[in-house]
């Protein structure tokens, strides 16, 4: 195998894979190529019980072998039943993990219409949810999202016990680092920086105040076997 340096994207794949560590026999539901590679890497290594989808109606193993049927309606039941951990995208994300993919600007007359809320409201109230942001910037990590699609910790708490009962925003992976909400007020915290990234760089690219320990660790290196899988199997 090649011995060239680990790339930023490879760190991101490992960081995404780590999101599913310890999840057991549930569906990993990644959106986008990097989270997809992460989910497959997790299944091939430390999370062998994970279920994967082909992005359409089939359950597959990490090599694409079909092991089940999962049309949209059954997928929604898996969401509501909580046997799923989704990693969604975010056009905007705030300090408490509120996410927007619907539109930018005023909802009644948006300056930029995006997808719509899709399944973000049902996802965030029912099954563990993480986010993947490929380009960490102040346009994405905003003070306040224009439309709350995915529900963050403050909004879930305000909405009451039914909203917060199964609410669980696990982590955010960006091209700069890994973040979680394990702080007293459930504000976003730097969990690790990808090697080569500084805390100042992340703070400059974030429009809200980020919690961070005095010594922030780096995102772990892939093992040689993980690196081989990423380079030879997953791409």
């Amino acid at each position, binding site marked *: 195998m090649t011995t060239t340096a680990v790339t930023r994207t490879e760190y991101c794949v490992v960081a995404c894979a780590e999101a599913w560590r310890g999840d057991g026999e549930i569906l990993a539901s990644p959106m986008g190529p990097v989270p997809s590679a992460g989910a497959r890497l997790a299944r091939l290594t430390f999370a062998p019980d994970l279920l994967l989808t082909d992005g359409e109606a089939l359950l597959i193993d990490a090599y694409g072998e079909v092991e089940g049927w999962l049309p949209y309606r059954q997928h929604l039941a898996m969401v509501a039943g909580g046997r799923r951990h989704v990693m969604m995208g975010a056009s905007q994300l705030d300090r408490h993990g509120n996410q927007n993919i619907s539109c930018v600007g005023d909802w*009644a007359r948006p300056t930029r*219409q995006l*997808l*719509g*809320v899709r399944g973000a409201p*049902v996802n965030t109230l029912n099954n563990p949810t993480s986010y993947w942001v490929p380009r960490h910037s102040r346009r994405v990590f905003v003070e306040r999202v224009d439309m709350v699609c995915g529900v963050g910790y403050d909004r879930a708490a305000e*909405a*009451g016990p039914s909203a917060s*009962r199964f*609410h669980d925003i696990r982590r955010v992976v960006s091209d700069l680092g890994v973040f979680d909400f394990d702080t007293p007020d459930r504000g976003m915290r730097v969990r690790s920086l990808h090697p080569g990234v500084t805390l100042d760089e992340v703070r400059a690219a974030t429009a809200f105040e980020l919690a961070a320990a005095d010594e922030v660790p780096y995102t772990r290196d892939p093992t040689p076997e993980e690196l081989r899988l990423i380079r030879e199997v997953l791409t």
Partner: protein
Amino acid sequence: MSKIMTPDEAVGRLRSGMTVGIGGWGSRRKPMALVRALLRSGVTDLTVVSYGGPDVGLLAAAGRIRRLVTAFVTLDSIPLEPHFRAARESGSLELTELDEAMMMWGLTAAAHRLPFMPIRAGLGSDVMRVNPGLRTVTSPYENREELVAVPALRLDAALVHLNRADARGNGQYLGPDPYFDDLFCEAADTAYVSCERIVDTAELLKAAAPQSLLVKRQYVTGVVEAPHGAHFTSCAPDYDRDEDLQRAYADAAAAGGEAWRDFAHRYVTQEQP
């Protein structure tokens, strides 16, 4: 009894102001032959309920939609639908924005003749803000949970496209996902099923197992034979999405003006693209 009709005959049963549900998902198995017939008709002022794709884009561009009920509009391989974007950004479309699960339960409530279905989605999100008609309901049992009461999405008509059907309206899907097409038909007072090929009833089970018989004839008003009737969206396994034509659609939509009028004229007036 045969329910066979042409696309124009099916659409001839629709009236302006109706609530019309459109099956498929994004740019997958959309009843495009029926949508094109709708565009050729004078029917307008519609409330459209759809997991949206180019069906929504075409109807919005032609000014036929008064209100859109949806969780998203996308062309799948092209994430943002240009006509939907333009309609929203110009304020020419009234939107009832729902979550994907809310749509499913709203259709389910309608199919079961219930006023609403309780679900755990929407609480804490801005769907409750931008959709002020939504109400919550408190569980009468045990822990008194507060849930969202999704109102029934009863439809005047449903338009769906399947792989096969017989003349009575038994509809069969051969692809991997039924989407919500049977639910759209059950939630509607009338349903028009277009299909790639109308076959004898006895032939249906030669292609696939009985669970592929998705739509029951009792829900079906009209059956339309429309080969390539989902094109340029996908209709697996008969054909995949026509990415070239979809790209041409998106480019013409983004360009607008003459480019769009030209595309729309060619795409809508030709019965078979």
